[in-house]
């Protein structure tokens, strides 16, 4: 059992539950440990959302994750899956048996990355002949031949589903776009553009969800909506849930463990002389 020293007990102020007002009692600043220096990536959960554990605790199983990870790493040895985020512009070339050229290339902005493991999916969105088109790809589908990141950047939100209700110019990209190289070692740029939505009705009530990348949704709402709907945030109370991150997110230990497994896998394959492809890499922390 934890027993504080007598001296510490005397020093305790009256409001010792609060963390923010007392920086000495708050969580200590994160020191870079020895492991982090050994080639591990700090932004691992953002770059590799497919290697995280399921947020449903019932579905976490060490053996299942091991087998799944083995398949994922094998696939990554055969196809170069680059780093991309929600908001990056990505081109995917996939095999299609019914086309004359037997392959299809689609360019679009990545609006969603969801699910873990072999189930991981990402969605690309583009406007083609004034019609919005969204294509959902399984990241580990073997019919995908090539994935390119044409422009590596992030947006203000981690889910850009609202582009379906935005003006079409925000999701229009040239299919013949030249790839823009990201200078290695520099942080990933954040595109702080705020999109304008079309007039309501929308597919979802974007104004009550806390999105940062939408330009002033409330003033655009028609008086009928303003009269009818309170301007409330639906999940506003969630910011008071102090352990929500622990319940649904990944732990540092797990991230380090997975990265070590990936490094071990890479090392074995390099030693076997099959490939020089590197799996674990990050554009921002590249040496």
């Amino acid at each position, binding site marked *: 059992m934890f027993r504080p020293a007598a001296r510490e007990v005397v020093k305790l102020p009256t409001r010792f539950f609060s963390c923010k007002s007392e920086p000495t009692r708050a969580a200590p600043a994160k020191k870079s440990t020895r492991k982090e220096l050994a080639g591990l990536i700090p932004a691992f959960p953002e770059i590799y959302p497919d290697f995280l554990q399921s947020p449903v605790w019932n579905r976490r199983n060490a053996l299942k994750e091991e087998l799944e990870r*083995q398949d994922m790493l094998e696939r990554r040895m055969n196809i170069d899956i680059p780093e991309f985020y929600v908001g990056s512009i990505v081109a995917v070339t996939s095999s299609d048996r019914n086309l004359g050229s*037997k392959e299809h290339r689609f360019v679009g902005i990545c609006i969603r990355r969801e699910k873990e493991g072999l189930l991981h999916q990402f969605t690309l969105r583009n406007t083609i002949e004034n019609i919005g088109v969204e294509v959902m790809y*399984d990241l580990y589908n073997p019919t995908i031949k090539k994935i390119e990141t044409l422009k590596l950047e992030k947006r203000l939100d981690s889910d850009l589903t609202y582009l379906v209700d935005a003006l079409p110019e925000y999701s229009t990209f040239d299919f013949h776009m030249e790839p823009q190289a990201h200078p290695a070692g520099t942080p990933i740029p954040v595109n702080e553009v705020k999109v304008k939505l079309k007039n309501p009705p929308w597919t979802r009530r974007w104004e009550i969800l806390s999105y940062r990348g939408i330009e002033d949704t409330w003033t655009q709402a028609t008086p009928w909506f303003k009269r009818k709907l309170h301007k409330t945030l639906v999940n506003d109370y969630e910011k008071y849930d102090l352990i929500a991150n622990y319940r649904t997110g990944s732990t540092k230990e797990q991230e380090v463990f997975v990265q070590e497994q990936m490094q071990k896998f890479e090392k074995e394959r390099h030693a076997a002389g099959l490939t020089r492809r590197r799996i674990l890499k990050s554009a921002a922390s590249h040496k």
Partner: protein
Amino acid sequence: MPGSKNKSRGTLRRKISEKCKFSLFEMFRSLVTSVTNSPACEFAGRILSANGGHITQHRGRRRTLTPVPWLPPVNEHVPKSSVGISKVTKTLLETVIEKENQVASTFANQASHQAATSIADIPASSRRVGLVVRKIGMLPQWTKEGGRILCTILEVDENHVVGVTSPDSWYKASAIGKRKAFNRHGPMWKVTVGATNEDPTNYTSAYRKKFTRAGVPVKETLGCFLVTEDALPLLGQPLDARHFEVGQYVTATGKTIDWGFQGGMHRWGMRGQPTRRTTKSHRRIGSVGSVGDARIWPGKRMPGHMGYEWRTVSGLEIVRINIDKQVIYVKGSVPGDMGEKLLLKDCLQEEKRLKSGPMPTWTPSLETIEEEPESPEEGVVPKNLLFKETFSPKLFRFTSPSIVYTDADAKKAAGRDKTKAKIAKVKK
């Protein structure tokens, strides 16, 4: 009838409390007896018979949530902290358990080597034993044509044969045997299979005795299979995931997900009532009968307890087996939640029946050692870096490059090309 039920419950509770007093003593004694190989006392059976009268319970309904009252309890409820075992006793206990398990596993291995087995034709009349597996997750796999298959992965966790009962003795011993030992498919043996080794101190001596008799470590879960005489495994024999073959069809049986009390919309897929111009009845089931007949017909679908029922899914194809980790990949979904135990056996549908395979079960003597090629091929991953696995020939392997289609793969149009005129073919 309700009175007798209450009475039986009261006596049961008394029995349990009486038993707890002696539980630790019994635990030690049975451990010692099992080691010295003298007959263990049958205390649980004695208490039951001392009570005399029959215990009845209405079982075999949609779901039964209470354990069988006429069998001795399985779990030993000893408050370990309050017992105050000294350190020496504890280490002694641990050593004895370890020794027991060692002896048990060596016996089991010997049993598997003694067993005669071969890859043989399986006649339609014979029933092989099955496996007790744990559902550990679902993940997609792809075919070589690029199709996606959602698979369930099932772990075969240390399966051993715990009991083999002949049809005659089964018929005499139990009411279930009365129904199943001599059925229309002929005399059936009852083979009990145990899965997942557990700490024996958590279980009563009556439960542990089964395992001592079979010479296997104490198991967490038991499952029973009906087996014909020609496919009978040995007592104490370990069972392997290779009991099944890739491409074979299997049947999975288990408890479905326990949803608890659910409404008619979730439980029966009813439509509910409109969102607008309806108050407080959006998810209600609506009318339950007609006016003239002032009652509700039996079997009317209503809210109630959903799930936790014994269900079987048959015709599941095995697409991949990981031999190192003893994991079976099955195409499709099986009943139950993640981490639940299931019974896996051969599919009995005639067109999906296993025609030839390891009879009665797989043993290490069937293992074939593949010859390593002298010079490994270029661009092929060496075998020591991969798990030992068997794949269905139609399954895409993640070690191979991306799928590329040719003209031959294109789908043929089902009908005539309607953009062109219909011209009669000239016969030559």
